[in-house]
């Protein structure tokens, strides 16, 4: 999932203090699962904004919403419609940065503010803890490293084994951080494939990662399918 963490209530308040009708929108997928921007967090943020407005003597109405996903047009359409209908003059999105962008581009002159800090692609190995497991680099090499990612899980994204900073399975940056390469070596020993680490991985082509500029995936067959008349599309199915 995309892991996010809520910004401070003071920050969120500062974004919207000058607006009279604010809509706080949660996101029902990743942000909900990582307990940062689901229905109950929408409720908490809205309540805090109302209390602050009252305490400071500001006229501000705070409305609440939570949609399934803020990254898909069909779900976002309802929010756009509501903003227009209820004359909302600012939106706080409790989605990841994708949701904020996606809403912002569709809301004309109504500003959208981020209620979360988007952290990483990760998972929750134990309650209350989330860890990064994928860097979204666009060219997966997990088949070479026993399913454990050196790009996301080595602090230096090294490709040819652990640096000299590996210490008792921990990384030189912190005793709380596992050394990604120690995990890879251990895993490949168990799989009996340690000898594969003898291959020297050449310098990587980072153009598939964020370093190559904003990325897009285009699948022409799906585009064509969507462009065809509905009946014909149905017939193909």
């Amino acid at each position, binding site marked *: 999932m995309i892991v996010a963490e809520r910004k401070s209530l003071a920050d969120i308040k500062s974004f919207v203090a000058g607006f009279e009708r604010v809509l706080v929108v949660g996101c029902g997928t990743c942000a909900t699962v990582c307990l940062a921007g689901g229905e109950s967090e929408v409720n908490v943020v809205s309540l805090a904004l109302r209390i602050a407005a009252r305490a400071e003597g500001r006229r501000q109405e705070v409305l609440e919403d939570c949609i399934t996903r803020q990254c898909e047009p069909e779900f976002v359409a309802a929010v756009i419609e509501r903003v227009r209908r209820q004359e909302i003059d600012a939106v706080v999105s409790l989605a990841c940065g994708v949701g904020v962008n996606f809403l912002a581009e569709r809301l004309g002159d109504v500003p959208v503010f981020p209620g979360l800090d988007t952290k990483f692609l990760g998972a929750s190995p134990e309650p209350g803890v989330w860890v990064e497991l994928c860097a979204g680099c666009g060219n997966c090499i997990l088949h070479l490293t026993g399913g454990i990612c050196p790009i996301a899980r080595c*602090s*230096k*994204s*090294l*490709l*040819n*084994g*652990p*640096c*000299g*900073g*590996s*210490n*008792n*399975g921990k990384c*030189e*940056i*912190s005793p709380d951080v596992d*050394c990604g*390469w*120690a995990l890879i*070596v*251990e895993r490949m020993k168990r799989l009996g494939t*340690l000898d594969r*680490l*003898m291959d*020297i*991985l*050449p*310098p*990587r082509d*980072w153009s598939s990662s964020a370093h190559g500029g904003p990325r897009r995936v285009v699948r022409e067959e799906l585009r064509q399918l969507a462009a065809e008349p509905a009946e014909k599309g149905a017939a193909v199915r």
Partner: protein
Amino acid sequence: MRSSSNLERVLAAGHFAVTAEIGPPMDCNGEVVLEKARLLRGCADAFNITDCQTAVVRMSSIASAVLIMREGLEPVMQMTCRDRNRIAIQADLLGAAALGIRNCLCIAGDHQSFGAAGKLKGHPGAKNVYDIDSIQLVSILKGLRDEGRQQGGDEIEMRPPLFIGAVWTPMGDPVDFRPLRLAKKVRAGADFIQTQGVYDMALFRRQMQIARDMGLHERVAILAGIIVPRNLGMLKYMDSAVAGVRVPQELMTRMAKARDAAGADKAQARVNQEQEGLRIAVELIEQARETPGVRGVHLQAIEWEHKVPEIVAQAGFLPRPVIPASA
């Protein structure tokens, strides 16, 4: 000869090589570097110039290397992958070669969160690069030097004659992977290896045995790292906090005895420990020299460089051999 560097010539002539380390200052005072150079002249075959070690901003390794060359010392320019992408690294390698630098040590570099292990502020909020890793850096340098080709594939006319170094942390975790990683560095094209500081000579010798069984000692010149201990606190710190450094209890006991012999006299305790530290360093050098496959030592007297001549003299390494460039 790949580089005709003094270090390469000394090793090629079969001598036991000695390198030492010079840490550049945190400001632009070149006199500090020149002063260290004058102090150390003649006591080693080449001198490593660190590249913002422990992720602290210091005078650049290229500039410092050129400064010590003015004093007649040969530098080993350290080059980390932390602060430069492959474009900047290759540009600097070419520039270094043009300035007359003939040795380059390829390393990953301490993570920017280090900040001298918390002793200085450093720049923990910096964005790191790590476009390539140290093994890839070795192979890129070899490509420039031996194939006249940049990493991207473009050909170059004049090839940089650099003697290629890499580091080895023989006692680093995971310890059984370390000889394999050394083998990768050798295969990538390393000419010489400087190891992380060795105190646990028994474990080092076991790792060297594995390296010898793989034939690595014949393909690369391994220089054992010796970090001169100054006091008990330093040994304890290195044992517990420096990855890949293990200090046997016996050495810590010796240092504790030296300290305690001074009783309540703190100044004397300091002197005693420093003397014991120098003795330990000379003994470690001797043990490293007796280890089959070891072809030199790399001395690190951190913030204590002026003691290097004394150590080298006691170890019987003086005078250093002079091998004419034409040999």
